[in-house]
């Protein structure tokens, strides 16, 4: 059966200083297909999509859309062709309602007037057509991330797009929200939309795509029909070697207690209880995984341990020392390392270069500082080592963070924190945005740290990851620990019930070494 080709990219090349991000890319997208792009971190996926959306102009190459040769110089051009892009960082105004956000920036049909009623009806019609259920009157700030994404999608559809680009849309979603997104995407496809989907999660790619194109080092390695390929083959194409999907774990050999949390309560400014009666402990050389749907108090718990948020009562001890009166810097010096979930906001300074970001916690300590001044020779060498070890793709250690690909930005934070062996490592979403090879690497690094006696507190919304890495799992629900389970003797179903708050288990059935 011949497919109608809606888009073909011909010999697209795009270079940045020191980097060829896209190298003579040829790609054809069929009408009404969901086409996934796969590739290692820095392979050039985002760049290619930015070109298609008019954010970058290619050095050379042609874009043929709907049979016509087109020049896309700005997102406006893209939209007028019907190409829309859902950004990872949503561009919504929190205080505005869904409706207001959707009409924001759209030209009115009768200029000084804004025919609200008419627009409202029009939006409702679009939503109905694509079977998107949304309350248009709620302020966006009250919506979960998954729903905000829906708003972005509706906005794009309302602008007339029927060719959608989604760059790692699931990286900010919980698995459940991810499944809801997929339902919506399939509905869109039914209605005639074409979708380009980017993700590092092979499971998702295998679930949703019709065809899959793999990029490596800026070049197209191949395009496969979904039904004729499998995750092993895809990852081999991406990375150029076999990737093992099973984690080899030595037996856990816990030492003395590193972190002990007792009866911790925390309220937010509105007086809502965020953490209730939390009791946990971790010993050296073990990984305690915290499973739970995002937003159930994980960030607050981690922040509290690191002295970034005050608790209302209870106590937190690290190596038998009370931390309530401490501060983040002192805790870091005592051997606490924290990798927050939102790395772009809390972990990186986009305008600083890689080296500057790598020393963000150590810059004032010798040998990073010598006398009155920063020791730039040492900093340069140190950061070059981190870049090499973590395989961060960049032409130089002096490139600004914002110029790295998403996954490589993640690697900078991971490399910074994992290069040292702290006594206690708190890590959230260890593999978000990482390609399969990098995931494997990070898993091994974490296990290596554990075997060296680091106590690790792992927060992840990816249940498989938590199950595979952890020695014990505690489940958090609405700021409360629902109980602890042994990953070897439990299954996803049981944890799932606990994560939903419908099952409780007496803590600590597991014996202590």
């Amino acid at each position, binding site marked *: 059966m011949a497919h109608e080709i809606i888009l073909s990219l011909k010999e697209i090349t*795009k*270079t*940045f*200083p*020191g*980097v*060829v*991000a896209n*190298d003579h890319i040829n790609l054809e997208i069929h009408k009404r297909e969901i086409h996934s792009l796969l590739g290692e971190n820095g392979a050039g996926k985002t760049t290619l999509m930015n070109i298609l959306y008019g*954010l*970058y*102009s290619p*050095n050379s190459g042609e874009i043929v859309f709907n049979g016509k040769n087109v020049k896309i*110089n700005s997102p406006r051009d893209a939209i007028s062709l019907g190409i829309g892009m859902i950004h990872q960082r949503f561009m919504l105004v929190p205080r505005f309602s869904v409706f207001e956000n959707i009409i924001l920036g759209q030209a009115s049909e009768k200029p000084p007037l804004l025919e609200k009623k008419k627009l409202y009806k029009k939006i409702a019609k679009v939503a109905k057509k694509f079977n998107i259920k949304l309350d248009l009157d709620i302020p966006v700030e009250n919506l979960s991330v998954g729903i905000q994404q829906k708003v972005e999608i509706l906005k794009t559809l309302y602008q007339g797009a029927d060719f959608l680009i989604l760059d790692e849309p699931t990286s900010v979603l919980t698995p459940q929200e991810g499944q809801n997104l997929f339902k919506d995407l399939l509905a869109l496809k039914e209605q005639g939309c074409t979708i380009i989907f980017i993700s590092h999660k092979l499971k998702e790619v295998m679930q949703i795509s019709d065809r899959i194109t793999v990029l490596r*080092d*800026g070049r197209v390695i191949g395009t496969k029909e979904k039904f004729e390929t499998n995750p092993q083959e895809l990852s081999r194409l991406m990375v150029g070697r076999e990737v093992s999907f099973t984690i080899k774990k030595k037996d856990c050999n816990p030492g003395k207690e590193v972190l002990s949390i007792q009866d911790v309560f925390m309220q937010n400014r509105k007086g809502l209880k965020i953490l209730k009666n939390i009791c946990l402990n971790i010993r050296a050389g073990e990984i305690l995984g915290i499973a739970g749907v995002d937003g159930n108090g994980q960030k607050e718990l981690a922040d509290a341990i*690191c002295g*970034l948020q005050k608790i209302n009562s209870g106590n937190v001890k690290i190596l038998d020392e009370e931390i309530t009166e401490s*501060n*983040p*810097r002192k*805790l*870091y010096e005592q051997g606490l390392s*924290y990798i*927050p979930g939102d790395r772009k*906001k*809390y*972990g*990186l*300074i*986009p*305008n*600083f270069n890689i080296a*500057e970001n790598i020393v*963000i*916690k150590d*810059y*004032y300590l010798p040998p*990073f*500082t010598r006398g*009155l*001044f*920063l020791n*730039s020779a040492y900093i340069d060498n140190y950061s070059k080592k981190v870049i090499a070890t973590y395989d961060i793709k960049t*032409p130089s250690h002096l490139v600004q963070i*914002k*110029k790295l690909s998403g996954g490589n930005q993640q690697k900078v934070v991971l490399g910074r924190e994992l290069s040292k062996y702290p006594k206690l490592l708190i890590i959230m979403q260890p593999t978000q945005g990482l390609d399969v090879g990098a995931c494997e690497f990070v898993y091994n690094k974490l296990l290596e740290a554990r075997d060296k006696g680091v106590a690790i507190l792992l927060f992840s919304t990816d249940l498989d990851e938590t199950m595979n890495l952890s020695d014990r799992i505690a489940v958090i629900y609405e700021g409360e620990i629902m109980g602890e389970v042994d990953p070897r003797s439990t299954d996803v179903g049981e944890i799932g019930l606990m994560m939903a708050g419908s099952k409780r288990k007496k803590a600590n059935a597991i014996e202590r070494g």
Partner: protein
Amino acid sequence: MFDIRSSIINQKKYKVFYAIIPFLALFIALFIGGVLIFFAGINPWKAYNYMLQSIFGNIRLFSEVFTHFVPLVFCALSFAVAYKGGFFNVGGEGQLYFGALTATLAGVYIQGLPAFIHIPLVLLTGFIGGAFWCWIAGILKIKLGADEILNTIMLSYLAILLINFVVMYFLKPANSYISQSEKIAKSAYFPKLIPHTQINLGVILSLLTVIIIYYFLYRSPYGYQIRAIGENSDAANYAGMNILKGTMTVIIISGGLAGLAGASMLMGTQYRLTPAFSPGYGFEGIGAAVMARNNPWGIILTAFLFALLRVGAGAMQRGVGVPLPISWTIEGIIMILITGSEYLSNKFSTNLIGGRA
């Protein structure tokens, strides 16, 4: 896998483009200014010619440029340091006045010290005065959450009124009718580098300060911390930096630099405090800093350019009758063009070269 060759060409193109911008802006602004001068009924060619001749033809007038240059450098640095630390200090003018006030007190009422003690002492009191005035704005922001743009500007007006009052009722010698303070002691005068000109110790001090601020901001751990806080205070906080202390330091340094502007005017050219002490260096310093993209080295250039324009404007007015507002317009156009070109070059870089906005 890197095609280094093409990218180096790209980078070069980019650098050249960046360097050309200020000159392009200057030429366009002078051209538009010329048109305006023409419509004012004056031959623009003659006017510019006269301007150049009077500035560069005579060492005394040329040295006049440095009277403006010194306080402009200090004010621009004041804005730039604060900006780098995430504090928007637009009240340099008031801090300049307050620094001048405290410096006057130390210059007039402390007598009989040798110059090598008196000069640093007066500078220090100037620094403290400016720092104190900025500190108030900082406290208002930190304690009450009041926006610093409003704070600093309001405090600026307050300082100017306050100094008017103090000069009139306290500093004016009893036997004088003119509202001005007494002269500071000779021991607090900046020595002249070239006799009979305005080129004095202040020039060296201002250049020295540029160097110090550069090394402080870009080479010292404390400066690193300040820039980190200014760029992303959340990340700085998570990295263990003390945001409050860092911000306070920035505020004090920024205010202190503006205070030094006041002190250096007092010690280098004015010698006494008057109600209209500064012709707006505090505000013009912001322009110079923005135009230099808050880069200390760039500030030397932009401050010098603004100082030249000031002298040139005066000369054109006196010599060929070009109204001052036309000269101000030229200055305004330069600022707009440079800020606008910032936007354009960003776009240029994302589209042709790369750089996510």
